[in-house]
């Protein structure tokens, strides 16, 4: 089985967001970029487990991004994986990202494509299903467990108010979340090995985005917390009813 893992670079949750150019763009200076946690902890690690178990022969990593995403993809390679592909393009539109990945993947005969349930920056969760549509294959989203036997995938996934177990034939795109695998930390050997693993750069034919971010806004500062004494819970309930109007 040949597996492709979609890796995206995102700002770390702990970095402060600063806007510039009249709120039209986000200041990138000072932002710490990380691998999207769902891609790293769940999709990538599960793919590596398949390789270790002899279920996968090859694990490829793919990212759509400029040269500044290379440290992140090297870090992903340090966890494992045979090679990485970087599609050298800007993309802030899932249609464009999925389009580039599909363009590459369609000639590679991947049996399984794993991605994260969403990125922590824009939280679309759209690249996976779009990719499946472009490759004309099935997609199962929000997986909490992924198992493969032969050409059949058994996937536990989140549903409204519960979980269900689905089966589907490969090839398949699956988006992963907590439960699929346990996060790993790269070791020294992995970091050394990653330095010499192939990282292929591809210049794609440009795809026109269908959306753009017109501008950003920072949420209004909280007015400040109103403290209520611990023995005045009737007052809290009254405030929640009369002032906040939530009960």
């Amino acid at each position, binding site marked *: 089985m040949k597996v492709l893992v979609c890796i995206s670079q995102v700002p770390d*949750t702990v970095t402060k967001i600063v806007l510039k150019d009249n709120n039209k763009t986000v200041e990138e200076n000072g932002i710490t970029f990380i691998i999207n946690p769902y891609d790293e902890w769940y999709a990538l690690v599960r793919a590596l487990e398949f390789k270790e178990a002899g279920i996968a022969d090859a694990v490829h990593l793919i990212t759509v991004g400029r040269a500044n995403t290379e440290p992140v993809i090297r870090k992903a390679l340090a966890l494992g994986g045979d090679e990485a592909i970087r599609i050298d393009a800007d993309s802030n*539109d*899932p249609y464009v990202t999925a389009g580039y990945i599909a363009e590459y993947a369609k000639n590679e005969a991947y049996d399984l494509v794993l991605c994260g349930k969403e990125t922590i920056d*824009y939280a679309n969760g*759209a690249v996976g299903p779009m990719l499946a549509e472009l490759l004309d294959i099935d997609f199962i989203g929000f997986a909490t467990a992924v198992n493969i036997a032969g050409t059949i995938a058994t996937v536990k996934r989140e549903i409204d108010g519960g979980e269900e177990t689905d089966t589907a034939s490969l090839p398949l795109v699956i988006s992963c979340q907590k439960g699929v695998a346990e996060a790993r930390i790269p070791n020294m050997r992995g970091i050394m090995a990653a330095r010499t693993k192939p990282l292929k750069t591809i210049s794609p034919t440009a795809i026109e985005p269908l959306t753009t*971010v017109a501008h950003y*806004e920072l949420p209004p500062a909280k007015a400040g917390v109103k*403290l209520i004494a611990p023995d005045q819970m009737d007052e809290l309930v009254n405030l929640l009813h009369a002032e*906040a109007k939530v009960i």
Partner: protein
Amino acid sequence: MSVIVLVEHTEGTIKKKSLEAVQYAADIAKKLGTTATAIVAGNVAESEMQNLGNYGAAKVLYIGDNRLNQLHARAFTRILVTAARQEGSPVIVALHDVNGRAIAPRVAVQLKAGLVSGALSSPDMSDGFVVKKSAFSGKAFAFVNVTSQVKVVMLAPNSFPLVKGEGSAVIENLTVAFDEKDFGVTVQSVDQITGEIPLSDAELVVSGGRGMKGPENWGLIEGLAKELGAATACSRPVADAHWRPHHEHVGQTGGTVRPNLYIAAGISGAIQHLAGVSGSKTIVVINKDPEAPFFKAANYGVVGDVMEVLPRLTEAVKKFKAQQH
């Protein structure tokens, strides 16, 4: 021409969040000088569909195929694409939930339509088609302009109060030519957590952290939740320690909630936790440490011991509810 909106149901009962989606689609339709058409599939009673008229749907396109009681994303994609072409729809609305998110992106690809997920506002059409959404784990809002001719919008549940009006919808059957591959995913078993309110859709949430000390104290969280009609949630270490099931964990690596009220008991308010809850309209924090970072993100704070405060709050809610009746 009409704006189409995908409607979800639970065993024939249309979900509240789908009523929100219908209302939202009707509002967009009105701005465009047209009407909204609701798409209903599976086993749903006529009265349920007629009720959609009260939320602004002028028409219901119904497809009564029992296989559609389950999420067959590719079948639903074909339904929406068929309906969108038939109706000449400029905008397609679905929910930003586990179902909508498996379907709407596929529809967007087929129609070459720009997609905006997690919509929090009605589109501003004064200069393009601009929709507000949360970005960077709640640390900013992005205003996304959809530049394609056809647009797909995924509405975040619980973003607009539901207003029941008076209207009627005509119900018509929709014919769709399915392909075998549309039903390629087989559901083997369903594990419905019954009796609980799904966390992602909940209007009220009571959540506990490590300050609750252990699973034996969760009766305090559940007692308050029951009194309020709220769903329960927890911080990550609580789920990691198996005090609570994993699906309750909210934050950067867990679920995201946007309830009207989020009550956090014994949670410190780490940024990774806030990432999943900062969209809540009102936040109440109960913590014995006045320096806990969560107080900075809270609307109301109680500095005190959860073991004492929670029972008192539950009592107060009970008293309040009794007065309401």
